[in-house]
């Protein structure tokens, strides 16, 4: 039984990880809690639903969703955040909440509040190992989360744009003086954040076979935020470890204590954690202005 909960926790945690990596990248560069993160990826996931419903091959549909997440988040940064970038913390946060509402209402307008089945056709098979059941999808999700963490780390460390991103996260004026095109680079970070969000969101939908408007805020922004708090806000390693821990905590609480009070208990654990270790397990690698 414990192993089963462990595996379930690992796989849902991996979904959260993909969502949180994008969230933490965006946080790392501007120290902005992007409250629109989940709603951007929810809209991207609905684009996938729309394309699949229109008869388009799921892989192409997912690519379409990922691209729309990339573009949407770039637009959000361009029109909602850029002009308030240097206006302290409160103004951009309000702007972000506003964008979240726009996205959410766009979804409600087009698709309504219903829950739709999300048939992507890669449920895979169930492997029975001893007493436990492992879905191949669970394995893919886990591999995807780890791979994206490695790819993003390499991108930041080894590419020119990645180094520019790290420079901006330390000091925008210094990066600008060295020749980093600040606005363009920040756009790219938002784009990547949105794209990764959609990938995480799609895996979430695939895992539960459903999609509804609530996957954005409650299951996206909030989970990413919780995972980031546990792992370390702004840190990539922190995103993955925090998210996987969150998945494990949820799965253990649901398995051993109560499904009904799962969310309440998880919040209680989180709040306790914030009180004990507010900086998370891995204080940011790319945030922290000098």
């Amino acid at each position, binding site marked *: 039984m414990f192993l089963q909960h462990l595996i379930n926790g690992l796989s849902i945690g991996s979904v959260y990880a993909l969502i949180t990596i994008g969230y933490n990248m965006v946080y790392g560069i501007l120290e902005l809690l992007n409250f629109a993160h989940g709603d951007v990826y929810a809209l991207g996931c609905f684009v996938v639903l729309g394309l699949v419903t229109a008869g388009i091959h799921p892989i192409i549909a997912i690519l379409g969703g990922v691209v729309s997440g990339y573009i949407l988040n770039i637009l959000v940064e361009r029109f909602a955040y850029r002009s308030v970038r240097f206006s302290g913390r409160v103004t951009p946060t309000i702007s972000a909440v506003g964008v979240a509402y726009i996205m959410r209402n766009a979804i409600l307008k087009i698709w309504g509040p219903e829950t739709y089945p999300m048939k992507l056709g890669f449920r895979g098979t169930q492997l029975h190992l001893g007493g436990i059941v492992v879905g191949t999808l669970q394995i893919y999700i886990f591999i995807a989360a780890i791979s994206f963490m490695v790819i993003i780390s390499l991108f930041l460390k080894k590419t020119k744009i990645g180094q520019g991103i790290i420079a901006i996260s*330390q*000091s925008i004026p210094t990066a*600008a003086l060295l*020749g980093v095109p600040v606005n363009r680079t920040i756009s790219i970070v938002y784009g990547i954040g949105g794209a990764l969000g959609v990938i995480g969101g799609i895996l979430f939908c695939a895992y539960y076979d459903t999609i509804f408007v609530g996957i954005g805020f409650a299951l996206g922004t909030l989970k990413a935020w919780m995972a980031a708090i546990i792992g370390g806000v702004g840190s990539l390693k922190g995103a993955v470890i925090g998210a996987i821990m969150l998945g494990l905590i949820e799965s253990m609480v649901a398995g051993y204590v109560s499904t009904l009070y799962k969310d309440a208990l998880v919040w209680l654990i989180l709040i306790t954690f914030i009180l004990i270790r507010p900086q998370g397990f891995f204080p940011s690698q790319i945030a922290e202005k000098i």
Partner: protein
Amino acid sequence: MLAIDNLVVSYGKIDALHDMSISLEPGALTTLIGANGAGKTTLLKTISGLMKPKSGTITYEGTSLIGLEPHEIIALGIAHCPEGRRVLARQTVYENMKMGAYVRNDDEVGEDIEYFFKKFPQLEGRRHHLSGFLSGGEQQMLAICRALMSRPKILLLDEPSMGLSPVLVKEVFKIIKDIHDEGVTILLVEQNAKMALSIADKGYVLEVGRIIAEDTAANLMNSKSIQDSYLGG
């Protein structure tokens, strides 16, 4: 090579530079001296595009720099080594050097880094260390080398001697002189007027946002009023 005319720059309603005019001759080492708060940093930030002027012109080899972004200005060949060094503390010495070449697209960046490492063995020995752990003097050398990595035609230096011990100040000024000898046009901003004038060709004296004197460095050194106010009598 660089001509600044009637420049006015302000923070909100308060003008920090009033009607300022300065020109840099090709290959010359020009220094701008002035007390803390005179407006030296504001001038450099405006040249490199970090601040937008209220009015006036900045012309570099015939092109106006007004309205250009900092990354466009460094790409034209003007590098700004900022006050307080501003090394990227979370990146290694090597990565900082590479960042200096961000606007370059040639394949000689690695060679250039090795060239500077050979010249400054202290940096070489710490190439994979995070820059935040370097000493003040090492950070200053890194900041200067990093600015040179863009292969600039004009180098803007903002108080490179600030916070360094007298021995290191001497060393930094020697480096600046070497860069000058290699033909780079330099605008050196300093509070340490004596040292700055001793290596410069030409000097400007800035007082609360206005140029109050402009002459060859030698003449400024010999001027009674400059001696009284800036060279410790």
